[in-house]
């Protein structure tokens, strides 16, 4: 093992745990927004990605994304790290040497691979066969996420050989505005189109059944996001500090931006709006937290929050049932944050690029072009891959539950559970098979 920095290692380990917490956080953020008859399914769609993506990451995901042997190309990693067996005593390499174990880097990036497909689930709430979702997650991360992570996050070996083409080209995406959020948002849009609307949408009210859950989930996301962004520095240093502060600032102002729009447009600043605005800010600052100043982050967040407060309404105009606004928040927020770097990148920031508003001129214009191209490339690729996988699943095993099951409620029909038992005495009785194997409770009551 090469020289390790214990401080850096400790920070990235903690960050990995923080990023893992975002997936259950997302589960509650989404779970509160659906109707009470589908809360468990919504939680489970997120939680399942931890189960599926983790072993895939060990088997080949990390290698395909971050393998740095001479076989690594501009489009995908290699097979040098299959099973993570060669990572055990190495230091992390990603366009340079980091004084942390490669396994820590692998664990940190695993959490990104887990939450990205989980983000997609919000677009297709209440209506998806759980088995089909499992198959989709396994296929989509392999065909879409692992390559895209290589394109954006893969900086190759210590000399930059085998770097992903977007990273090599100089696209700035510090923690995944394109690789995570545009990626998931475009896939969400594709699946919302493949699967079609929920029965009754948009005529029937489908109110969030538990807004406190949404706020709880947003709070967990906000907390975990410090690992996501500041952890992406891969060290406990000034870069991490800048990412940390910008994350806090943009999230705060995005929440304000969303609430201001609501107050003037709808007459009320809502709880759901505060939670949504905060998440929008987190999404928008993800690519840009190394490239803007805290002053820049104030504006970036404020504008992102205000924009997304409007873009969540687009689904009603275009008629696609992106149930929990994965497109309006993640695709739009991720794209905005990525493109905004072309304007707001500050020479005094860690990334050191110069955007148009800082007098970037020709260089700034080039940066804007690269950022926009990255958004379009990743978005288009993800949309096409998700659309094709979605269609194939729909034609073979079927992607949607039956109409009757959807009306009854997906918790009951897919999971054989009910989210809330609020009445004493409505618990039912045990079935004859269960009662036959264990009658001790009944006997003790009778005695």
């Amino acid at each position, binding site marked *: 093992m090469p020289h390790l920095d214990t401080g850096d290692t400790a920070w990235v380990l903690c960050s990995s745990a923080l990023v893992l917490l975002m997936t259950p956080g997302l589960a509650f953020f989404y779970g509160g927004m659906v109707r009470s008859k589908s809360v468990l399914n919504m939680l489970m769609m997120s939680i399942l990605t931890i189960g599926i993506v983790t072993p895939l990451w060990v088997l080949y995901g990390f290698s395909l994304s971050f393998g740095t042997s001479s076989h690594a190309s501009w489009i995908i990693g290699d097979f040098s790290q299959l099973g993570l067996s060669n990572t055990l005593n190495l230091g992390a390499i990603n366009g340079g040497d980091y004084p942390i174990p490669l396994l820590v880097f692998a664990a940190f990036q695993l959490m990104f691979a887990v939450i990205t497909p989980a983000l997609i689930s919000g677009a297709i709430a209440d209506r998806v066969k759980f088995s089909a979702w499992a198959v989709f997650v396994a296929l989509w991360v392999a065909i879409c996420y692992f390559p895209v992570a290589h394109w954006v996050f893969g900086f190759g070996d210590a000399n930059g050989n085998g770097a992903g083409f977007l990273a090599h080209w100089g696209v700035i995406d510090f923690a995944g505005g394109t690789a995570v959020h545009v990626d998931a948002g475009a896939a969400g849009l594709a699946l919302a189109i493949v699967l079609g609307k929920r029965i009754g949408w948009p005529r029937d009210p489908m*109110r969030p059944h538990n807004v406190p859950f949404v706020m709880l989930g947003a709070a967990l996301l906000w907390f975990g996001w410090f690992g996501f962004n500041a952890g992406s520095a891969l060290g406990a240093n000034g870069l991490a500090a800048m990412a940390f502060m910008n994350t806090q600032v943009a999230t705060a102002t995005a929440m304000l931006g969303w609430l201001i729009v609501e107050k003037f447009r709808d007459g009320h600043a809502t709880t759901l709006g505060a939670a949504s605005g905060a998440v929008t800010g987190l999404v928008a600052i993800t690519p840009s937290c190394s490239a803007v100043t805290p002053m820049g982050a104030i504006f970036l967040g404020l504008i992102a929050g205000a924009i997304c407060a409007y873009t969540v309404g687009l689904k009603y105009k275009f008629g696609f049932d992106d149930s929990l606004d994965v497109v309006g928040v993640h695709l739009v927020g991720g794209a905005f944050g990525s493109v905004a770097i072309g304007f707001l990148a500050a020479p005094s920031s860690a990334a050191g690029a110069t955007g148009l508003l800082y007098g970037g001129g020709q260089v700034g214009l080039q940066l804007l072009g690269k950022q926009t191209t990255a958004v379009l490339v990743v978005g288009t690729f993800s949309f096409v891959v998700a659309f094709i996988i979605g269609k194939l699943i729909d034609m073979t095993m079927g992607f949607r539950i039956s109409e009757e099951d959807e009306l009854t409620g997906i918790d009951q029909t897919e999971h054989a559970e009910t989210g809330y038992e609020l009445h004493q005495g409505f618990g039912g009785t045990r079935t004859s098979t269960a009662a036959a194997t264990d009658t001790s409770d009944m006997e003790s009551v009778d005695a």
Partner: protein
Amino acid sequence: MKLVTAVIKPHKLEDVRAALETFGVTGMPVTEASGYGRQKGHTEVYRGAEYDISLIPKVRLEIVIQDDEVADIVGVITKSAHTGRIGDGKVWVSPIESVLRIRTGDKDTDAV
């Protein structure tokens, strides 16, 4: 025997219950109900999408009493549940055929 059913605003429940207790009513089942009358519903906004929520939360009380108490009981409920604003609710009275107390087996007027 009569059954007095009252549907009232939830925040008036404690006033009504206390008034009935003072008058000598010793107990009643209370259920949460949803409904609407002339009050209609209200509007809620989620991410800019407005919903008309037609059903409003109400509380429903059921009191079984002797025939000669009807006018007084209805009066007590009406007075204590009254706010003068739309949505105060309704009280109605219906005849009861028989009543039985499960624990003791008391019947009809003894069971009320």
